[in-house]
């Protein structure tokens, strides 16, 4: 009854070369290398070396049987699918009987040898089952979070966010209006099998405008004839709610395979250490699934996912005019604190995102393949506000964003090089519902994009490789927008943009602003291994980003921030030149990675306060989109240290400095220095019992522009001038988080993991510079979380 077992992590380093090579390392459960294991793949066999490594070369693509044996350990017996170079690390188990779990992923996505990719594996993603994509990404050194409250979270990579960090879900770029700061990526983390963060714009096969970086999400997939599933249930004290996520996977190599996953979240008001954060609940109901047929030379797959969320916006953040903002900042206590409730009231956001895609891959011959993909996305965003007299059920903003995308890619891998090229085209339509009673912040528009790219990687020796790529993008956008004539004049759009005017509506112009862009982007770099376990990555990239609709067309009062936001039709593309490098050194028990970078951005678009406008609601500060030349420099540090058999330590440090080179001074909203220390104790023998204590230190941002302004408030019936301090960052903070889990067997075929964790263990009161609601409330306080995961 020897049950074969294998549990492994797959590491796909850099490259695909034809007549594939297969390599990897064999270790025991404690990561100790196993020498002289017998490794048998198809008709080839070898013994592992002293460091546990093995390798095969000239390996044909196709199905291969793997058999690994070692005295005293359970043999590993499985089948893998080889389509390119593979690095598979195997872990051999001594005795304990555990559920057989086979997860194989094929390395066919990344060409970017010269950029060290940061990967987040499934086990880590599961910990964040109840949270948002941004929270998961924070696992990567150099990723910070831009928040609008506790549930709207978006990633900042090396100081850049929103349009500068595209998110790819299953090879489709999410088109969900996340250019707005208070919109987070419309994605449920439970649908991710693996997440990769590529810092900088080197992923040219994806896009040419990823000035900050790219987030690549791959769904879970199984390539073995098996069926299994998992359910994760999480309940949390803060918000008094929970998340449930279930998935079923039917794997197969040839023939049919499918995956289905659903999740649901239900939370009420969160609480800070001192008060209830009124109206901060959220709901989600998400689904994703795919069906795939794999033949001998091709595979075809259909994928669909739905993200469906209702997110309450903190009541206290809905302010009127600049006096209300002044009061909020100076009182340091929210103006609305009500009893806890699960009810979600206005203001709130309701979002639905559908993604459907079809793709077809054809394997011409060894190392040569063609893939075609069509994707359809439909995103509906409704924002509900407190209306003066209109019923609250009528949205204040209602946008339908529809996108069709076609991709065709060709890949060729030879012994020492690989090449990939492709074209893409997309059509996008945004329709702003005119029946909201409010002029939409983002107008209706049509947009066409087309791109073509080629990337090439050359492998000179096993230790040295180069890669390079170029991309061309064409984009045209035509918007349909009403401008108040007063605004048109104030913006000085006449006469330069008078040609956009199509009709006179008395106090307003109907305009059709049309813009066309042609952009070139490029990337080149090297990967070099030297000395004893040193690896060096170096990459230079040039990327160009077009102004997005909010940067062009924003025009009006933004209630959640209490400011008038004005776009500018004069904006030009933003051009980034980035140098990124990573140096990694491995010792027996320690791995250290440092990643310095330098990013010079010509025409960096940002919002700047320029004065006041008085309306009937009072005075509001005006923020305009402007461009400057910016220089971002920084360094990310990551170390993983296996102190002893049971103790592990991880340290993450990230620093970025943003300078405005045109006007001097600092850039706004740059993440401050942060240090994350984790110490973990785990013992395999005790049902994998693991404890982890995490210390998160975020320093005060000392480099920031002074955007404070003067206004008049009423004191004893008289108007008196005051300064509204919107610039000063909050104090540094220091948080402790705890987590623990252990595994147990529920039945013959199912295994469970029970976890208990506490976020903000000491109930520390703090505010975060990168939370847009820092003017109004403290961050969330202590949160106890109980999580049960069942694999079956």
């Amino acid at each position: 009854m020897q049950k074969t077992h294998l549990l492994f992590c797959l590491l796909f380093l850099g490259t695909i070369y034809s007549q594939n090579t297969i390599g990897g390392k064999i270790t025991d459960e404690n990561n100790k290398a196993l020498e002289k294991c017998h490794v048998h793949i198809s008709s080839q066999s070898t013994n592992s070396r002293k460091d546990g490594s093995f390798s095969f070369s000239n390996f044909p693509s196709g199905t291969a049987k793997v058999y690994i044996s070692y005295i005293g350990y359970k043999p590993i017996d499985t089948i893998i699918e080889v389509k390119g170079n593979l690095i598979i690390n195997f872990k051999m188990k001594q005795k304990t009987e555990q559920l057989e779990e086979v997860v194989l992923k094929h390395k066919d996505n990344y060409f970017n040898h010269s950029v060290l990719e940061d990967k987040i594996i499934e086990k880590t993603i599961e910990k964040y089952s109840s949270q948002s994509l941004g929270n998961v990404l924070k696992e990567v050194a150099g990723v910070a979070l831009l928040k609008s409250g506790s549930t709207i979270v978006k990633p900042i990579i090396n100081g850049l966010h929103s349009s500068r960090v595209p998110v790819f879900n299953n090879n489709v770029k999410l088109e969900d209006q996340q250019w707005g700061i208070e919109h987070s990526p419309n994605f449920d983390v439970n649908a991710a099998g693996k997440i990769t963060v590529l810092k900088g714009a080197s992923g040219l096969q994806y896009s040419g405008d990823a000035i900050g970086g790219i987030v690549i999400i791959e769904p879970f997939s199984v390539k073995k004839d098996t069926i299994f599933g998992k359910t994760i249930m999480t309940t949390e004290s803060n918000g008094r709610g929970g998340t449930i996520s279930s998935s079923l996977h039917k794997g197969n190599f040839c023939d049919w395979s499918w995956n289905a996953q659903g999740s649901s979240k239900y939370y009420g008001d969160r609480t800070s250490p001192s008060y209830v954060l009124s109206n901060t609940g959220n709901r989600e109901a998400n689904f994703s699934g795919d069906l795939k047929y794999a033949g001998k030379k091709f595979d075809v797959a259909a994928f669909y996912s739905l993200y469906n969320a209702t997110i309450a916006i903190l009541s206290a953040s809905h302010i009127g005019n600049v006096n209300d903002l002044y009061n909020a900042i100076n009182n340091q206590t929210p103006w609305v604190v009500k009893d806890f409730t699960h009810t979600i009231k206005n203001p709130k956001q309701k979002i639905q995102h559908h993604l459907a895609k079809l793709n077809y891959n054809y394997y011409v011959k060894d190392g040569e393949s063609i893939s075609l993909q069509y994707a359809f996305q439909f995103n509906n965003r409704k924002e509900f506000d407190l209306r003066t007299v209109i019923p609250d059920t009528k949205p204040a903003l209602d946008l339908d964003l529809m996108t069709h995308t076609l991709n065709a890619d060709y890949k060729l891998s030879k012994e020492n090089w690989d090449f990939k090229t492709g074209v893409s085209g997309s059509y996008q339509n945004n329709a702003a519902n005119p029946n909201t009673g409010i002029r939409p912040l983002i107008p209706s528009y049509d947009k066409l994009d087309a791109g073509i790219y080629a990337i090439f990687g050359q492998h000179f020796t096993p230790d040295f490789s180069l890669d390079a790529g170029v991309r061309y993008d064409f984009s045209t956008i035509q918007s349909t927008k009403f401008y108040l004539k007063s605004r048109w004049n104030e913006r000085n759009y006449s006469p330069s943009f008078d040609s956009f005017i199509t009709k006179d509506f008395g106090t307003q112009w109907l305009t059709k602003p049309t813009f066309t862009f042609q952009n070139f982007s490029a990337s080149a770099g090297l990967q070099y291994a030297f000395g004893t376990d040193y690896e060096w990555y170096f990459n230079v990239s040039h990327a160009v980003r077009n102004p997005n609709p909010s940067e062009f067309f924003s025009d009006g009062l933004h209630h959640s921030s209490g400011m008038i936001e004005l776009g500018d039709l004069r904006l030009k593309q933003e051009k980034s030149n980035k140098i990124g490098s990573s140096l990694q050194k491995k010792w027996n028990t320690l791995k250290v990675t440092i990643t310095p970078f330098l990013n010079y951005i010509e025409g960096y678009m940002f919002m700047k306060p320029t004065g006041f406008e008085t309306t009937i609601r009072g005075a509001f500060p005006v923020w305009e989109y402007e461009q400057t030349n910016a220089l971002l420099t920084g360094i990310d540090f990551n170390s993983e240290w296996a102190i002893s058999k049971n103790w592990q330590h991880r340290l993450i440090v990230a620093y970025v400095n943003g300078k405005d080179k045109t006007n001097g001074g600092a850039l706004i909203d740059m993440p401050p220095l942060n240090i994350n220390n984790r110490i973990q104790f785990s013992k395999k023998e005790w049902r994998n019992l693991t404890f982890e204590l995490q210390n998160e230190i975020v320093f005060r941002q000392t480099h920031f522009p002074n955007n404070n302004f003067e206004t008049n408030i009423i004191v004893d019936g008289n108007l008196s001038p005051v300064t509204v301090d919107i610039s000063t960052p909050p104090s540094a903070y220091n948080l402790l988080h705890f987590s623990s889990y252990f595994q147990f067997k529920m039945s013959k075929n199912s295994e469970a993991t029970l976890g208990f964790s506490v976020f903000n263990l000491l109930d520390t009161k703090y505010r975060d510079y990168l939370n847009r609601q820092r003017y109004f409330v403290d961050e969330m306080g202590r949160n106890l979380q109980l999580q049960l995961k069942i694999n079956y």
Partner: protein
Amino acid sequence: MKNLSILAIAVVAIVSLIACSKNDPQPINEDELITTITTTLKNGSETTTLEYKDLDGDGPYEPSVNVSGNLKAATSYIVTVTFLNETTNPIGNITEEILAEGVDHQLFFQAPSAIGTFAYADQDANGKPIGLSFTLTTGAATTGNLTVTLRHQPNKSADGVATGDITNAGGATDAVVNYPIVVE
């Protein structure tokens, strides 16, 4: 580069065709925009009006303030406030809607204490003031600003709010206007 330009023109043409196939859209009907706040003070047959007008809403134009005359010292005035949307045809009267949702709205009046004392003269369904009408009893001759504030969803039960103290009212500001006034 020439081919690219041709491609560009072709694509623009396609987009234009897509765009032109639709009818021209109509401007958004901004139902609840307040453009005009008129405060009318009556003493017997004498009427003084204070008007505050901002016809381009959130647009850049500065509002205009119009005061029809000076107030008399030591005089009782019956005051009403009206809210209009003059961008629509017919002109929208928001006063009625504020009255209908009286429990969710309250007006506040702030001026230097020398100008006089304010007292609410109306009530919502819960017996709390709304402030669409009130009385002003002027003091001795002076000058100053009268500030009228309309708050949405104020905490009407908070300390002092029912007697017109805005300090604890909370809520969101739907409108706030200043009128320069002279008491003679």
